[in-house]
């Protein structure tokens, strides 16, 4: 556990020092969501209908955009190879880095999302479901995104390629989350969706770190 806490603390401190860089995906999220009324129509009904999809797809992209930061600077300055040589569990190391990344990107996203949702006339009574789905799903996005970044670290075309690899894996998260929200909008039970997302989260927490460790090793070969 020592390694987990030490790396978590280290990464959070670094994120704090790079506040402006960390804020970029959030600004991206805000701007892209505001483009939809301009691009589609400011019509109240139409916007509230597409709001869950818009918020979710934009959140996916913002999270994906931010993923590169999780390993990039550590890879470039040689810190990552040092971390991989630390005696101790590499899985905990990966979990610590993903957790730190989620705290610095995922959490602010969850806080901003309801505000942006209201701009799209998102039904107020379904806001809670939006936040809950984001809360359960953004860690999944961070975990899966980490695989893509780890696989493409040593390549020059890393960023766009890693999105290409990982976006298909985001589909279940997108589907379950938006379905949960539309169920909440029409006052239907939503616990089943949360349970599914939760199961997906637990599975990802257990399995994905191993894939990330393997991918990091390949990148350092």
């Amino acid at each position, binding site marked *: 556990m020592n390694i987990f806490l030490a790396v978590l603390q280290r990464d959070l401190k670094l994120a704090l020092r790079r506040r402006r860089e960390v804020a970029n995906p959030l600004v991206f999220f805000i701007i892209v969501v505001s483009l939809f009324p301009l691009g589609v129509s400011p019509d109240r009904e139409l916007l509230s209908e597409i709001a869950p999809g818009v918020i979710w797809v934009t959140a996916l992209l913002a999270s994906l955009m931010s993923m590169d930061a999780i390993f990039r600077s550590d890879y470039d300055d040689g810190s990552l190879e040092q971390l991989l040589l630390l005696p101790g569990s590499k899985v905990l190391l990966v979990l610590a880095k993903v957790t730190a990344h989620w705290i610095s990107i995922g959490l602010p996203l969850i806080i901003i999302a309801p505000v942006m949702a209201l701009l799209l006339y998102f039904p107020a009574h379904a806001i809670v479901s939006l936040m809950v789905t984001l809360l359960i799903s953004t860690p999944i996005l961070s975990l*899966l995104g980490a*695989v893509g970044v780890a*696989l*493409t670290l040593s*390549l020059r*075309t890393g960023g766009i*390629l890693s999105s*290409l*690899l990982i*976006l*298909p*894996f985001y*589909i*279940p998260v997108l*589907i*379950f989350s938006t*379905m949960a929200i539309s169920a909440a909008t029409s006052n239907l039970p939503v616990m089943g969706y949360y349970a599914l997302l939760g199961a*997906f989260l637990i599975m990802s927490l257990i*399995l*994905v770190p191993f*894939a990330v460790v*393997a*991918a990091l090793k*390949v*990148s350092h*070969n």
Partner: protein
Amino acid sequence: MHFIHKYGSPNYFYQWSGTWLKILSALTLILMALGLYWALIISPPDYQQSETVRIMYIHVPSAWMSMFTYVVMASAGVVAMIWRIKVAEIVVAQSAIIGASFTLLALVTGMLWGKPMWGAYWVWDARLTSELVLLFLYVGVLAIYSAYEDPRTGAKAASILAIVGVINIPIIHYSVEWWNTLHQGPTVTKFDSPSAPLSMLTPLFIMFFAFKTYFFALLFARTRNALLSRERHTSWVQEILEK
């Protein structure tokens, strides 16, 4: 796990796969001829879909093979990652290409079939959508493999992605199916009619086996070629070339 190293050693693999390649190629020729003749000439046209139903004999086996190939690719990926077998690495890369082709074939035949059925080449039907996502997954594996200059590193990266993919495919598949039923209501799936008569099922199964033998024959042939070019500086390849 001694036998994995034995059957996976480049030299020995080249020997035993040669025999299998001949058997599989012969089987493919026979089954393909029989199946196509049966499917296109003997079997009756459907009472609703008339002659277009014959697309099924290509479409359904391709769709099956597109999934099957992914499983083969991921299994080879596991072998490549754990035992570091060179042949398995090549199999990952080669099945990715073959699998992507099957998927594309399934998509194109599905669209051609869809035009008379739905009046449009593309509808967001659960199966077509799943197949499209599968194509994305194959493209990802191919992209990561070719992005690396070193083919062995590329194959390892592709293996990891394939393994993550094979765990996710059932979840993706299920979620897409579910999304489809909720948004469109239970559509009657036109691609498999449970009451299909035996006269249609028989050629379908023959075609299915023909596709399967074709896949393995192709996989062996491509893997052997790639192996020869990869190992061209070694003594065993030189010996074969001199013969």
